[in-house]
């Protein structure tokens, strides 16, 4: 029985909890991509960089707060600094929309032109971020590292395996729940949110009923900037901030949005968790877990790892491919907010 519990705790510690935290970050990122797809109808390749940009300003504000001796105690100071990052990201995307995308909206360009424009935007953001904060790794986590440490857990339960619950993981989960709840309340309950859903469902009909398209687009960008900054900051707190990694998580984010059904917020969240958990599950070494569950003589020699961690992109890609082949609209029906 203890062996069984040990195996469960081991799985929770190394697979489920990190998977859920990562899933939260992906879900928030995918929500941003899906919102832009629903309203402006293009895949925003600059989304990863938007996340990095918001995070960068959060880091700068965190440093400022830290140097003035302001902190939240056990909770990372970055949470206090996040509004600054969000504000910066909002200004950035609204400025970009005015200077870049608005022109193509007037021209009624094809989505593919937007996509190329977003590539240019990505290039620009990327340079801007490296220009301001540099290409190096930045660690900006402070406060206490753990909510429950492995040792405390062992003492509490008397098991061999400890379960550590990192502060950043707890923060990620709580903040994600708040953000998602607020977003769905906004989309389903408020007048503006409803007008956005109407616009996404049927643009012409929405215009006929007097919905102001500029306002809808503006709010979509603001929401995206908020979600991107929150997702980016949480990701940066949990791992570390490096401009390059934000280009790389673009693929899992897109995969999450498409797997869930692009344009569908509930789908984006489901897709985020699905991608994150499968990524962690496929690259996890099961040796110890199996060791607890089977008699000693059966214990495997190798790591029992399906794929090495370097191939985690292959996991999201494979899932993406399977979904494209089997159900191109995604798990939830896509293309509606």
């Amino acid at each position, binding site marked *: 029985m203890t062996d069984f519990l040990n195996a469960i705790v081991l799985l929770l510690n190394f697979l489920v909890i990190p998977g859920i935290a990562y899933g939260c970050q992906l879900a928030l990122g995918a929500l941003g991509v899906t919102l832009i797809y629903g309203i402006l109808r*293009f*895949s925003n*390749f600059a989304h990863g960089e938007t996340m990095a940009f918001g995070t960068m300003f959060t880091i700068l504000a965190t440093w400022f707060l830290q140097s003035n001796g302001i902190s939240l105690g056990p909770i990372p100071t970055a949470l206090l600094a996040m509004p600054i990052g969000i504000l910066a990201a909002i200004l950035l995307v609204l400025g970009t929309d005015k200077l*870049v995308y608005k*022109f193509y909206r007037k021209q009624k360009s094809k*989505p*593919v*032109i937007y*996509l*190329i*424009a977003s*590539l*240019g*935007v*990505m*290039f*620009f*953001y*990327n*340079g*801007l971020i*490296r*220009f301001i904060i*540099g*290409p190096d790794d930045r660690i900006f986590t402070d406060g206490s590292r753990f909510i429950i440490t492995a040792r405390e857990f062992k003492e509490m339960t008397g098991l061999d395996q400890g379960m550590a619950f990192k502060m950043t993981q707890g923060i990620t989960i709580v903040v994600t729940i708040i953000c998602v709840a607020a977003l769905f309340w906004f989309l389903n309950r408020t007048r503006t949110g409803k007008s956005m859903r109407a616009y996404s469902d049927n643009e012409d009909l929405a215009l006929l009923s007097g919905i102001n398209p500029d306002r809808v687009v503006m709010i979509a960008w603001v929401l995206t900037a908020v979600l991107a900054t929150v997702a980016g900051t949480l990701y940066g707190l949990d791992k570390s901030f490096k401009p390059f990694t934000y*280009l*790389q998580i*673009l*693929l899992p984010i*897109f*995969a999450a949005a*498409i797997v869930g059904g*692009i344009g569908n917020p509930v789908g984006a969240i489901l897709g985020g968790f699905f991608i994150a958990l499968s990524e962690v599950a496929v690259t996890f070494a099961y040796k110890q877990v199996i060791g607890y569950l089977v008699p000693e003589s059966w214990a495997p020699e*190798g790591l029992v790892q*399906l794929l*090495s961690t*370097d*191939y985690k*992109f*292959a996991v*999201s*890609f494979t899932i*993406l*491919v399977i979904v*494209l*082949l*089997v159900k*191109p609209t995604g798990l939830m029906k896509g293309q509606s907010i």
Partner: protein
Amino acid sequence: MTFNLRNISLFAIMGLLFIAVGIFNSWSTSLFILNFCLISAVMSLGVNIQWGYAGLLNVGIMGFVALGGMAATLVSIPPVYGAIDAGGSGILFSAFLTAIAIAAIYYAYNKLKGGTRKLVITAISILSFFVIRHYLDPAVDAIESYDSAGTGNLGGLNMPILFGWVLGGILAAGAAWLVGKISLGLRSDYLAIATLGISEIIIAVLKNEDWLTRGVKNVNGLPRPFSVPYEVNIQKSTYWMDLANSWGMSIVDLSSIMVKLSYAALFAIVLLIILYLSEKALASPWGRMMRAIRDNETAAEAMGKNVTGRHLQVFILGSAVVGIAGAMLTTLDGLFTPTAYQPLRYTFLIWVMVIVGGSGNNWGAVLGGFVVGFFWIEAEPIGLWFMDVITSGMAEDSDLRSHLLKSAAHMRLMMMGVILLLVLRFTPKGLIPEK
């Protein structure tokens, strides 16, 4: 293209820029940039075939470039017989099992229907994964542990590297077939995202599969094509020494220039062949059909054209050209470094070239490759100089000054982004517009 004055002068200005670099800087630098631009022009031709002819968005150019580089490496390096003895049979057997698994899945896909089909295919995939891993893993371990400091891989075919250029094209075409088969015919964004994914995976494989290309340990000392001499040989020859003396150059400079010139000649031949073929294709009924499909898919489909099939065809062709360019790049470098493949440099920069040059026009793509390639390399000195001027009024030890000088290298990313956006907005047809 009609050889009007404007286009000729655009190319002439480009030539003058190279001469200017040669005179004011050094001819070696000028030729280095020229070689880089020639390869970039081939890549940009390949992307132009996809985007300009057919409107297909390939955001994974990097992956195809890397495949080309891998092909050049695997063709040219000598085989490692010890490693082949140790694990070659295991690798071959795994490849054989993979082929059987794919055949079984294909058979099941065609013969079965509905729920059973999904179940059977899933079962075959999972089962074959474990069986293949069972045979592959020991073989890989055996190969990687054989002389791991020196080689640690299977080695290659020890053939002329030029064959690698052909193989690079073929490999890239194969990868393109796979991606295209899956994502063409769906929403246009899906191709972009699928190519983004496949390129990341190709790079991940090249970094981690040490038995293939030594992974991050890199492969260096690739042999040169037959037409390119080695510097040492030139420096030993009395003929060249006399020539250097009579021109008043040092023999070291002369040999490096000669080597770069030989590369440039080789690349120029490839560029001209591909350019000629592309122009022929564009002017042919096939090219007209492609443009008709690009401009109005529905109408072309109503005329009985197989839109998805043509898209697949053109996507494969373009990727093959990119693969060839990737093999050329690795040949020029003489070494294969998987970590050097960065999406900003190998995917998005090529996009800037195509858009700036003029999408849909082959000459435009070539010019774009030259202009953007030139400024990509020259942007660093220009940026440094610019920053020097800006910061000249500041105190020597000012933090801002040192930060600005250090960040000059990132200026070119911003610059490329701005150029792409400006061209896309104000002259969407590019420097040399489509006819």
